[in-house]
C-alpha cells in the first residue's frame, strides 16, 4: 500500500513545476499548457483525498474540473487566434497595450 502522502507530494511537485512554467514562459500557448498542468496536479490531489476518505466527492469535483478546463481551453485558444490576427504575435512580452 502506498501512503496517500506520496500522491499529495507528487501533486504538489507537479503544481510547482506548472507554476514555474506559467511564470517563466514567453509564448502564450506555453503558459496555457503550464496552467493545464497545474489543473491536472489539482485533479490528482482531489482523487488522492477521495481515496483517502473513501468518498466519491473528490472524483465528482474532478469531473467538473475536466469540463471547466475544456471550456477554458476553447475560449483561451479562440482568444489567442484573435490576438494573433491583430498583433501578429503571441509573445506575452509584446502584448503590452495595457501597460502605461
Amino acid at each position, binding site marked *: *500500500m*502506498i501512503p496517500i*502522502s*506520496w500522491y*499529495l*507530494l*507528487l*501533486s*504538489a*511537485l*507537479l*503544481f*510547482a*513545476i*506548472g*507554476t*514555474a512554467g506559467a*511564470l*517563466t*514562459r*514567453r*509564448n502564450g*500557448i506555453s503558459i496555457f*499548457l503550464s496552467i*493545464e*498542468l497545474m489543473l*491536472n496536479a489539482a*485533479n*490528482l490531489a482531489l*482523487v488522492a483525498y*477521495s*481515496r*483517502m*476518505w*473513501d468518498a*466519491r466527492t473528490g*472524483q*465528482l469535483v*474532478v*469531473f*467538473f474540473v*475536466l*469540463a*471547466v*478546463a*475544456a*471550456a477554458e*481551453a*476553447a*475560449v483561451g*485558444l*479562440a*482568444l*489567442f*487566434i*484573435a490576438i*494573433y*490576427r491583430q498583433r501578429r504575435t*503571441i*509573445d506575452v512580452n509584446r502584448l503590452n497595450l495595457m501597460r502605461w
Partner: protein
Amino acid sequence: METAIFLLFAFLAVASSLVVVAHKNPVYSTMGLVLTLSAVAVLFVLLGAPFLAVLQILIYAGAIVVLFLFVLMLLNITREEMPQSGQPVQRWTAILGAAIFFGLVGTLLWRVYHAANRGPLAPLSEQLVSLKALAGELFAEYLLPFEIVGLLLLVAVIAATVLARRPEDAENAGTAVGPVLTGTATTEPDPSGQNPDFGGGGR
C-alpha cells in the same frame, strides 16, 4: 507491485512535466503534456478512479491537447522562442521560486494528511470504484452543477465561435452582432448573410 507502478509513472509524470515547462519548442511541450496526462491517468487507476482515468485520456489528452496542437500549427508558432537577455538569472529565479512553492504546498498537504489520517488505508471499496454509484451521485446530488456546467460549455462554444471569427465574416454575418462587434454597423443591415467558414486565418 503497486509501488513499482507508482514510482515508474510518477517519475514519468515529473519528467514529462519538466519537458512541458522547459522545452523551447511549443510542439514538444504539447507532446510532453500528453505524456504527463497519460501518466496521471494511470495514477488515477491506482487510486480507484478508473472511469476518471478513461475520461482524462478521452477529453484532456484526446481533444483538448489536440486543439492546442491545431492552433499551434494554424498560427505556425513552432519556431523556438527568442532567447531573452538576462536569461540565466530568470531561469534560476524560476527554479528557486518553484522549490519554495513546492515546499509551501507540500507542507500544507502533509499537515492536512497527518491531521486527518485515521490509520492505514482500507482496501479499495466497491462503492468508490463502481461507475453506477458515481453516476447515481452525479445525477442525484450534483444535478444542478451538472446542468450549470452544460450551460457553461454552451457559452464557451458561442464565445469561441464569435472570438475566432475573421473580421470580414463578422461584417457580412446576417445578424446584428457582427457589425456591432467590429464597429462597422450601419443603419441598413447587410442582406448577404453567409456563414463563417471553418479553417480560420493562419499565415
